[in-house]
């Protein structure tokens, strides 16, 4: 039998720390992949109560600094010295990462290194991995992950999203092992195609430096080609899977039909289009309530929108909800709407489908590729979105068929399938001889 590949996975969000799709996807995929390869997973924060069988999980909050330094070989000491002197400012990585990483320094003072590491580790002492000093945290993660990697035997580096890409580049430069970037979300999705800030630069440099890029949809593969200028043969899209859930339906206490939006209320998710769509639907079907579950920087603007006063008693903001509350909402919803402006995947649409809720999603969402049964419209096509919602509410034949067909679509989607595809791409491209 062929020997299992050894994969060094670099993650950022991981259960129980989950802000969005990234943590869910990294967990689902790694768990399924761990049946096919050996995985060592480095995370900024690991929870000792949440370990996955077969995955060696290293949270930077749990590592023993003394041990780390003592166990380091002299070569890795040398490397440690190299990486630790890289400026905390991320800007130097713009386009010339390889040169910087190649720099060599003659001496290294172990005491100084230890002090620096201590300082680096302290930035993970937070409950919010995305707060103010994110750049510094990304930098520290890169340094420490590189030290850890220097003591490990692995064949492939597998990095999830830009926060771990710097670490991925460093480790590739140190080890010469192939770097695989798993792309769940991009700066141009989050902040529009005009965003060319340092995060974009990190993503672009990493993509250029990487050996393989695995976006979660063909849609995102297109974005990578168009906005990052990466050649197609380096990109292999693999769709996300989904965890099976105990889905249920609940009796709603409201007499009206419920149309649900779930997600961050930020420009990327198209909440303003949802709002416009709602106004349009309510004009023709007053017997409908719209629920927006989530929070974000656009919420205030929507509430202050003059149209909101008009819609007020039919349009509800719930704020951020626990998974349990989200599932309850899914269990009473009649339509799920995801009008994202640019969505690499959109796992929540699949969750809605699991709960038997017909989905109306934008064509600019990766999930559209695996849900032929979702009704689709361009995110800006408010008329078509509204028409789709009304049709689902009005025509029972359509509603029933969409729910039925969605179960068929879901039957073909699993993390096991995604992991099998990923493993075969690993083997095709980086087989250990």
């Amino acid at each position, binding site marked *: 039998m062929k020997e299992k590949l050894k994969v060094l996975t670099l993650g950022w969000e991981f259960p129980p720390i989950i802000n969005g799709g990234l943590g869910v996807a990294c967990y689902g995929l790694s768990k399924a992949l761990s049946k096919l390869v050996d995985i060592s997973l480095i995370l900024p924060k690991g929870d000792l109560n949440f370990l996955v069988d077969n995955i060696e999980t290293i949270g930077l909050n749990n590592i023993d600094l003394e041990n780390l330094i003592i166990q380091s070989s002299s070569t890795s000491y040398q490397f440690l010295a190299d990486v630790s002197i890289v400026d905390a400012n991320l800007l130097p990585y713009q386009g010339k990462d390889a040169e910087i990483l190649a720099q060599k320094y003659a001496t290294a003072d172990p005491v100084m290194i230890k002090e620096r590491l201590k300082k680096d580790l302290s930035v993970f002492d937070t409950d919010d991995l995305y707060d103010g000093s994110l750049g510094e945290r990304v930098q520290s993660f890169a340094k420490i992950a590189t030290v850890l990697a220097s003591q490990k035997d692995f064949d492939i580096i597998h990095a999830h999203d830009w926060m771990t890409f710097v670490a991925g580049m460093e480790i590739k430069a140190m080890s010469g092992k192939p770097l695989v970037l798993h792309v769940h979300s991009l700066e141009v999705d989050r902040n529009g195609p005009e965003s060319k800030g340092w995060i974009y630069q990190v993503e672009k440099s990493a993509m250029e430096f990487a050996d393989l890029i695995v976006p979660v949809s063909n849609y995102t593969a297109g974005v990578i080609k168009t906005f990052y200028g990466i050649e197609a043969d380096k990109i292999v899209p693999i769709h996300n899977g989904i965890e099976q859930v105990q889905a249920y339906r609940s009796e709603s206490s409201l007499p009206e039909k419920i149309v649900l939006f779930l997600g961050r209320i930020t420009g990327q998710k198209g909440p303003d289009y949802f709002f416009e769509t709602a106004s349009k639907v309510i004009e023709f079907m007053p017997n409908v309530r719209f629920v927006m579950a989530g929070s974000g920087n656009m919420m205030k603007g929507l509430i202050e929108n003059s149209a909101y006063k008009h819609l007020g008693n039919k349009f509800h903001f719930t704020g951020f909800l626990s998974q349990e509350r989200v599932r309850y909402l899914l269990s009473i919803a009649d339509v799920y709407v995801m009008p994202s402006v640019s969505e690499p995947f959109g796992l929540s649409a699949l969750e809605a489908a699991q709960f038997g809720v017909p989905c109306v999603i934008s064509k600019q969402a990766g999930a559209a590729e695996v849900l032929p049964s979702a009704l689709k419209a361009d995110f800006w096509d408010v008329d078509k979105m509204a028409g789709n919602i009304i*049709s689902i509410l009005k025509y029972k*034949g359509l509603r029933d*068929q969409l729910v039925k067909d969605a179960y068929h679509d879901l039957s073909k989607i699993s993390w096991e399938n995604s992991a099998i595809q990923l493993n075969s791409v690993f083997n095709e491209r980086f087989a250990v001889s």
Partner: protein
Amino acid sequence: MNICFYFQVHQPFRLLDYNFFQIGKDHFYENDALNKQILQKIAANCYLKTNALLLDLIHKHPSFNIAFSISGMALQQFELYQPEVLASFQELAKTGNVEFIAETYYHSLASLYNVEEFEFQVNKHDAAIYAYFGQKPVTFRNTELIYDNAMAKIAEQMGYKTILTEGVDRILKGRGPHCIYNAPHTSHIKVLLRDYELSDDIAFRFGDKNWVDYPITVEKFVDKLQKLEVSAETVNLFIDYETFGEHQPESSGIFSFLKAFVTECIDKQHYTFYSPKQISENLEANNEFFVADFISWADSERDLSAWLSNSMQYEALHKIYAMRNDILKTKNADLIQMWSRLQTSDHFYYMCTKYWADGDIHKYFSPFNSPYDAYIFYMNILSDFELVIKKALKGK
């Protein structure tokens, strides 16, 4: 042995992307621009060229007979968008070698929902065929060869001598589709069965480079005919006419194949080319074709599932036929015509989800992005149409 060519000619009046917000405002439902464009394209690729080829073959071989079934929807679009197509069919009719077959004028599924409506549409089609081609049809084919025992009986009661349907394996149970069958509970109507293997060799597989028989030559095809059972009396090649030049483009060699095949069969093999009517007059039926559940020539299932297998299709079909009484009460010819065109089976075919997620043949024909869109636009149109009818009835 006999070869029976029957070609199906049909074009639906495709509908618009009619959104919810148009209901109550726009009462035009058909995509005139698209229908015109498609009809003219197919006329150029197929109808005019193939008609000329067949006319030429008939002139060269006076014993070469063929049959057409042309839906009322196709006839109407010829008149609207390209009358010379109609004229070229009339040329063919004048040779006396062409039989025109009866069907429902609107290419509808009326036989499944309302017998009275069904008979009305068949009679309307008969009248149109007589008006255009001077023939009173004696052979009947129901929309997409939908058929069961009752269908044969109804056709016989309406005066037809022959009925066409699909040679479905589960009914034939090892018997070939190459002899003449009779139907239970009927006295004389003859049933002719399509040889789907050989028909689809031409209709579907002709240009398929992955097919073992590609490229199919006249020699290979005739060889297949010669290897049929000794008792084979007729090989019924029932084919969508658009196969020639449209589904199989001219570059595939389909036209030269057709020409060479007919010439070879007549000159060298001494096969006859009888039309269905001539077969019935010349050959006896001595086998029963017993069909309890509906069959058709559509999809691999060869049943009703292309039009009736999901809740959207059931709902849409139920709704259109439930409108009949109100529509007829309006006595408004335009409204009745619109309602009738909305019955065309293609509208329901586009709503089929059977293999939709996996990509299939229904997509090739559908003007819509998805079966759900097909349903939504159709139902929106019916919603508007209901308002129009209501208004018309109030005015009475």
